[in-house]
């Protein structure tokens, strides 16, 4: 019905509506996601084998198209767990295995299963914004719903990769499997 109304209006009014869809989010949304990601890293313990890099750093890889990558890059240079955060943009999934955290953009939605498989059982915290990511085998999902960021965590998948997630984080997250 709504579609018919739209067609009718467009045809009778000659009214082209180039509505800008907010599919790519907003800068503020990514500022919030960066803040949330910072606290997530604070609450995750990696196995010692996850860190081979010297000097001690936590590498955060950004995978996919992120129009507001600069909002996530505010984490660059901050320190957590005695390690400096380093944010870098990745050109392919193989580079993600060198990171402790990989943020998978919504542009990678068609390849999510493939990315999850590639990083399966690796000590890499997978964080995404693709709907259903945590249910489909990802570790952490940051989805925008009801005008708020919703945090979803798949504790079992993280455990398989020997990542330990603090109960402090689980307290404010939607946890999978339920």
């Amino acid at each position, binding site marked *: 019905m709504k579609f018919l109304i739209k067609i009718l209006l467009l045809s009778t009014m000659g009214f082209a*509506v180039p*509505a800008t869809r907010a599919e790519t989010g907003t800068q503020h949304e990514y500022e919030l996601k*960066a803040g949330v990601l910072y606290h997530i890293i604070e609450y995750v313990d990696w196995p010692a084998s996850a860190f081979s890099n010297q000097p001690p750093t936590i590498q955060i890889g950004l995978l996919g198209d992120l129009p507001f990558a600069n909002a996530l890059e505010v984490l660059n240079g901050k320190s957590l767990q005695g390690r400096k955060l380093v944010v870098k943009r990745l050109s392919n999934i193989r580079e993600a295995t060198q990171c402790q955290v990989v943020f998978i953009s919504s542009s990678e939605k068609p390849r999510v299963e493939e990315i999850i498989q590639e990083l399966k059982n690796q000590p890499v915290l997978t964080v995404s914004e693709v709907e259903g990511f945590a249910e489909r085998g990802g570790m952490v999902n940051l989805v925008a719903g009801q005008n708020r*960021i919703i945090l979803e965590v798949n504790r079992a998948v993280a455990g398989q990769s020997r990542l330990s997630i603090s109960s402090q984080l689980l307290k404010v997250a939607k946890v999978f499997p339920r």
Partner: protein
Amino acid sequence: MLIAAITMGPSLPVAAQMFAPRPDPICTTFMGDADGGAHTTSQPQDLTGLSLEDLLHEEVTPINVLGSHTHLKNGFMVGYRYMYMEMNHNQEGTRTVSESEVLSRYPVVHTSMSMEMHMAELMYAPTDDLTVMAMIPYIINRMHHLTSTGERPFASSDGIGDVEFMALYNLLGDPRAMEGHRLVLNAGFTAPTGSMDESVNGKQLEYSMQLGSGTWDFIPGFTYLGQSRRFAWGAQTLFTVRSGFNDRDYHLGNKYRVSAWLDYKLTDWFGPSVRLDWHAWDKIHGADPVLDPNRNPAFDPNKQAGARLDFLAGLNFYVPNGFLKGTRFSVEGGVPVYQNISGPNMAVDWMITGAISYTFR
């Protein structure tokens, strides 16, 4: 953000209907973080200092001084608006008519009239696409007269006006988008809660001094909304269609309104606005049997039609932080740049509106 109600003012009696509130950025709510607009290049904020709980409670799309006219799902707005309109001269058509000329044709002339309105506004959005609202006006009218015998009688009326309800349905465009265009369907009605029996010393007052129409009135229309990083603009067309006759054997004329506005976001918390507002209203159909049109031009149902174009400028403020976060203040003043009224009857000289609203989810 100046936000607002795609409102149109309540269905008011003859003079009051010239006095509809803006479909304003001012009083409705809004979302639209201009700086959060897609692909903005402004320096990103570092929010890592906030706690995880606070971050998860922050709005992805914060409201700001630019206002839209609808709300997002589960959004509420409560608002109060004060309006004042002053009329100090008589016109017939576009021509100003002196008091002595009116007195040469009628035994009484109106020398001034003021209209005040206090209005409570409530809005709620059950979904992103639908916002419903209610407006409850309290009206105070004052009128000064001069008779051919030199007396200067004063009359006033006050009370609840017609309560208005409206649904705003998003037809085109994304209500959550930071930039772009939208088309909104307005579907409203007013209930005849305002008195049309206002009198002084047992004498029925003029049509323009009554507080309600006495009829159920329907208000269909469309609103176009546009928004960019710094600007919000829009246009609205609304009809007020009367149904049937009231208990005093008349109904007010149908009304047509078109307005267009432009708001500029100077900062997140302040923005000026300009607006053009066109009203046209038809004559009264039927007649109150106790009002003699030969005694007073404001008693003549055939002399109650008119049209007017107002130019208005506004200042809009938004409180982005603290315990008043979500509160908007606005003030808007204007003058008619064109008036053509059946007469001789009172014509508008100037008007001012102040509004405060609080939006929350």
